[in-house]
């Protein structure tokens, strides 16, 4: 029998149902894999082995009786941003030291309702602010992938770097993640995994530590398109506790995976052909279009003229919302407190000690752009630009485009401690240049591994869809996955 941890989620689900193995065995294998790998990869910040084993036992009882939900006995990793009752929830920040919520996020509740179990909490950039998972209070996550003939550590991307690394290195069958500017899709691209950011409002944000509320969306990272679709079906759904949750039926996303792309029109935005774009990214993009054409899609050149302004607008809107959301960390209600001579002193010292550098930088930018005299020039202006960005997409979709194909990232994974990016925060921000437009417009976007660069590292393509048309994204991503037909398994060195 093959190693249980290497099975896709879909295959594990089948095996459990057929009683080829038990949830207890599957869970034990994952826990053993985590124990071996985590000292090297640092993907988990907390492992909940006992709860996982107890949940597996309960799932086995249900499976034995021919019962159980669609994810019965499936072991998952949960990003540290999701509130999990009685379990470590710190958004990988020092300021939430010791926080164990009294509630369960809607997304994790939905997964548990469907029978899934949690192996532990996954590392991430602090408060989901970062593109390399290096801003975590718990230290960087290391990418399971290495360049050929190199033992240099690479980043897994961020902010959902722990989720992507754990899925890629077979440390969970699938993972939850969140995406504010690319935090699901960029790490998926860096690790050869599949990640989808659903339409804004598709998944409840309730119980997820807030970063930028008008941009945040939860989604899955998985090893195959089908696995991602299975997880999406469970986590999506209307939730009255999130006022921006949309009351719309959740389709069986997995049923759309093999639908194909025949008759679809795929848009190719010329503004995504950036100056200095590496040849291999350009080639991969063309290859992706050829694959979709070969399966009956039509390719159409389109223009999204405000693309270049999405990232600068994002770096006003997201820090502004973050500065407001993160005001709650004051040393009073939870987490860290550093005493001072009066209450203001306590606030200032607690926040100075509790937030990392990147978080402080963004809270300060946000505070500045929202401060008296600057609000209109920065925040209102950025929200106007955001309207234009969304309008660009509407024009394309109204002209008959069903989905848009772009590269997922401007490069493959880079090194841990990259000096260029450390010296210039904007260089790091440019990682999200292809993904951030999607958040600004509230659209769904999927990253699917499609090729490798010259040093053998995975590269991804991104498909952008119409609001609430994730099904087309799964179908088109599956065509790319099938046409590429590449084994995206990292070579274990850990």
């Amino acid at each position: 029998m093959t190693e249980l941890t290497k099975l896709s989620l879909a295959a594990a689900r089948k095996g459990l149902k057929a009683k080829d193995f038990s949830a207890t065995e599957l869970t034990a294998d994952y826990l053993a894999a985590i124990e071996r790998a985590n000292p090297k990869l640092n993907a988990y910040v907390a492992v909940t082995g006992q709860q996982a084993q107890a949940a597996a036992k309960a799932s086995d009882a249900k499976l034995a009786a021919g019962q159980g939900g669609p994810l019965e006995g499936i072991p998952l990793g949960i990003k540290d941003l999701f509130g999990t009752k009685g379990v470590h929830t710190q958004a990988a920040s020092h300021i939430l030291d010791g926080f164990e919520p009294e509630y369960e996020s809607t997304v994790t509740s939905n997964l548990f309702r469907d029978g899934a179990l949690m192996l532990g909490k996954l590392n991430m950039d602090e408060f989901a602010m970062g593109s390399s998972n290096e801003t975590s209070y718990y230290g960087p996550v290391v990418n399971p992938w290495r360049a050929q003939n190199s033992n240099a550590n690479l980043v897994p991307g961020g902010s959902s770097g722990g989720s992507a690394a754990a899925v890629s290195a077979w440390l969970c069958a699938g993972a939850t993640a969140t995406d504010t500017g690319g935090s699901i899709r960029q790490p998926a691209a860096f690790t050869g995994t599949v990640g989808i950011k659903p339409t804004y409002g598709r998944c409840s944000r309730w119980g997820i530590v807030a970063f930028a509320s008008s941009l945040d969306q939860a989604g899955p990272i998985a090893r195959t398109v089908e696995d991602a679709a299975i997880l999406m079906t469970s986590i999506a759904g209307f939730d009255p506790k999130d006022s921006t949750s949309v009351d719309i039926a959740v389709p069986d996303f997995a049923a759309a995976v093999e639908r194909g792309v025949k008759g679809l029109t795929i848009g190719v935005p010329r503004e995504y052909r950036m100056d200095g774009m590496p040849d291999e990214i350009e080639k991969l993009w063309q290859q992706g279009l050829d694959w979709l054409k070969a399966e009956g899609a039509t390719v159409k050149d389109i223009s999204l003229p405000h693309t270049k302004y999405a990232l600068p607008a994002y770096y006003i809107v997201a820090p502004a919302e973050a500065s407001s959301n993160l005001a709650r960390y004051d040393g009073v209600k939870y987490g860290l407190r550093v005493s001072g001579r009066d209450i203001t002193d306590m606030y200032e010292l607690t926040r100075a000690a509790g937030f990392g550098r990147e978080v402080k930088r963004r809270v300060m930018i946000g505070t500045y752009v929202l401060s008296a005299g600057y609000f209109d020039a920065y925040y209102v202006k950025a929200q106007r630009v955001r309207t234009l960005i969304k309008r660009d997409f509407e024009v394309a979709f109204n002209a008959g485009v069903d989905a848009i194909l772009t590269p997922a990232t401007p490069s493959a994974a880079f090194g841990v401690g990259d000096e260029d990016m450390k010296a210039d925060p904007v260089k790091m921000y440019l990682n999200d240049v292809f993904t951030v437009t999607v958040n600004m417009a509230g659209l769904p976007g999927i990253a699917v591994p499609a090729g490798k660069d010259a040093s053998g590292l995975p590269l991804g393509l991104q498909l952008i869809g119409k609001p609430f048309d994730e099904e087309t994204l799964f179908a088109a991503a599956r065509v790319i996955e099938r046409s590429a037909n590449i084994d995206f398994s990292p070579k274990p060195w850990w």
Partner: protein
Amino acid sequence: MAVDAATVKKIGRLARIRIEDDEVAKYQDELNVILGFVEQLSEVNVEGVEPMTSVTPMRLRRRDDVVTDGGYPEKIVANAPLSEDNFFMVPKVVE
């Protein structure tokens, strides 16, 4: 629009984050790099364009004004660094 050292200190105070004197220069550099980057937006003509208030075409839902939850103060303060009789404890704010 570039920020000077005094502005960095002021933003720190507004954000309730202590910025030590020896940190000011570094923050000033970094904030100015970011503000320089977002400056590109001045090229965009937004005349007559409404600022986005909701990314999905929906009105904020309203619910009945009734109590649906609560009654467990001990859970609310369970994670507090300091609490007494289900109250959050803070340094004295009123003399």
